[in-house]
C-alpha cells in the first residue's frame, strides 16, 4: 500500500521578540516522523496547547512568517515544497478545521463550499458536487442559502466536513474535530471520519481526546513535549501492557474506565538535552539524562526510548 503522506524529522520553531529587541527561539515540534497510507487513519494525540496543530499548518503551508521548519514532508512520494503545497491544498489535501469560526460569516455556506472557480464551467461542476455531498450529509437545498450564524452546531460541523470534501481530496487533515461537542455529535463525527476511510481516503487526525483516537484510528502517535514518543496500532492501546513507552502506559492507566490511576509529573517547558520524559520516567537509565533517544522501529512499533532496541541496531 502506497504512502500518501510521509513526514520525516520535522522540526518547527518560532522566533519571537521578548522585551524590546531580544529574540527568543521557541521549539514547538521536534524531530517528528509519521506517515499516513491510503485508507488509513492515523491519530496524533497530545495535550492541548502542545503545538500539534502546527503539524497541520506546516503540511498546508500556512505557518506564520516567523517560523522555521526543518525536515522533509513527502506527498505520494514527491517532496512537498511550498509550490506544491499551494498547488494541491484545497484539492488533494484538505483541512477539516476545528471550529465554526473558520467559516466566513458574510458568505452563504454553499458559496464557501464551492470556493474559487476559474470559469462558469468549473463552477457548474463544483455546484453539482457540492449539492451531492451536502445531501449525503443530510443538508437539504434550503441549507445552501443559509449564512453560518443560521446553522446549529451540528449542521456547521457537517458544512465544514462537506466543504473539505468538495475538492475530492485523497488526504484529509482533521484538526481537533470534536471538542465542545456532546456525546451524540461526537459519535456522528467519529462515524463521518471512519466513513472517509471506507472511501479510501487517508486521514491525519489531530486530537487531545484519547477516546476519539481509539474509536477511529488505525494507528496512534503519542505526542509528548514536542516529540512523538510512540506510534502503535490502536488494538495495543486496549491494555497498558501492550504499549511500550512508560508515558503511554500512564496515559492508558489514567483513563476513568482503567482505574483513574495517578501518575505524577508535568511535561518540561524547555527542550532538555536528554529524553523529554527523563524527569518522570520510572525505567530511566543513566544515559537518558544527557542523550536523546531516536524514534526506532521495534517489532513494528515506533518507539523513542533507550530501553527498546530498534530492529536495525546491533545484534
Amino acid at each position, binding site marked *: 500500500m502506497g504512502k500518501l503522506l510521509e513526514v520525516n524529522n520535522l522540526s518547527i520553531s518560532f522566533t519571537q521578540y521578548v522585551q524590546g529587541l531580544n529574540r527568543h527561539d521557541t521549539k514547538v515540534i521536534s524531530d517528528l516522523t509519521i506517515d499516513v497510507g491510503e485508507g488509513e487513519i492515523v491519530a496524533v494525540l497530545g*495535550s*492541548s*496547547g502542545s503545538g500539534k496543530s502546527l503539524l497541520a499548518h506546516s503540511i498546508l503551508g500556512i505557518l506564520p512568517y516567523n517560523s522555521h521548519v526543518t525536515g522533509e514532508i513527502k506527498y505520494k512520494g514527491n517532496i512537498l515544497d511550498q509550490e506544491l503545497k499551494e498547488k494541491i491544498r484545497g484539492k488533494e489535501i484538505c483541512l477539516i478545521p476545528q471550529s465554526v469560526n473558520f467559516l466566513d460569516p458574510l458568505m452563504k455556506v454553499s458559496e464557501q463550499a464551492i470556493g474559487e472557480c476559474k470559469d462558469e464551467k468549473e463552477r457548474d461542476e463544483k455546484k453539482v458536487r457540492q449539492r451531492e455531498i451536502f445531501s449525503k450529509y443530510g443538508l437539504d437545498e434550503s441549507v445552501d442559502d443559509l449564512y453560518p450564524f443560521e446553522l446549529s*452546531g451540528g449542521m456547521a460541523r457537517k458544512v465544514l466536513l462537506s466543504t473539505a470534501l468538495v475538492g475530492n481530496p485523497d488526504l484529509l487533515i482533521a484538526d481537533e474535530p470534536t471538542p465542545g461537542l*456532546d456525546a451524540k455529535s461526537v459519535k456522528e463525527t467519529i462515524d463521518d471520519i471512519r466513513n472517509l476511510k471506507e472511501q479510501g481516503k487517508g486521514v491525519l487526525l489531530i486530537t487531545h481526546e484519547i477516546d476519539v483516537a481509539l474509536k477511529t484510528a488505525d494507528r496512534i502517535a503519542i505526542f509528548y513535549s514536542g516529540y512523538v514518543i510512540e506510534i502503535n496500532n490502536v488494538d495495543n492501546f486496549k491494555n497498558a501492557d501492550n504499549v511500550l513507552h512508560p508515558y503511554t502506559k500512564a496515559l492508558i492507566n489514567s483513563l*476513568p474506565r482503567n482505574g483513574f490511576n495517578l*501518575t505524577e509529573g508535568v511535561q518540561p*517547558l524547555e527542550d532538555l538535552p536528554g529524553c523529554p520524559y527523563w524527569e518522570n520516567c520510572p525505567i530511566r537509565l543513566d544515559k537518558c539524562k544527557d542523550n536523546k533517544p531516536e524514534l526506532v522501529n521495534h517489532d513494528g512499533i515506533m518507539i523513542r526510548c533507550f530501553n527498546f532496541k530498534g530492529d536495525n541496531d546491533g545484534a
Partner: protein
Amino acid sequence: MELKANNISFSYNKRRQILKDFSLSVDSNRIIGLMGDSGSGKSTLCKILAGYLTHYSGEVTLDGNKIPDRGFYPVQLIFQHPEKTMNPKWKMEKVLNESWTPPKELRDTFGLKDQWLTRWPNELSGGELQRFSILRAINPETKFIIADEISTMLDAVTQVQIWEKLINHAKANNIGILAVSHDPELLEVICDDILFFDEINNL
C-alpha cells in the same frame, strides 16, 4: 454547609428560556456531578451559582441565607479555558496571587513549578494554567467550588492529577464541589452522586 439553588429561572432574551424552576443542593464535603449536553445551559447555571449573573429569578442560598454581594464570594467558579480567565499582560506570579497567596506546600501539592511564576500566560499549556486557576479558587474563605468542564481540554494524565489534588484538598477543608461535565465515565469515578441537567430543568 449547604449550597442551595431554589427555583431558578433565567433567559438571556425573550425568545428562549434557558433555566426554569431549577433547584439543586450541594453539601460541603460532597462531590456532586452535573451532566448535560452542550448548549443545555450548564455553564449559565454555574455563573448564577458563582454570582456572575444576577438577573435571575429564584434564589441561591448558603445555609439558608442569601450570599452577600460584598467581600469575598464563597462560591468560586473554575472555567474550562483557564487562558481566558487570566490577564495576558500579567506574569503568572501576579495571576496566582490575585485572590490570595497560596503557600509553597500547596503549590507543590498541585505540581506548580516555581519556574512557571516568571512566565506569561501564553507561554504555559492549558494543564499548567488550570493548576493556577484551581489554586486561586481555593482561597481559605472558599466554601464551594463549581468546576465547569475543568479537565475537558486536558490530557488524561493531567486530568487525574488535577482531580485527585482538588478532591483531597476539598475533603480535608470541608469544601463542596459541583463537577459539571459531559463525560459520564469521569463523573462516575470522581463523584458521590450524579444529577442529570435535563431532568431537573423543568423546560
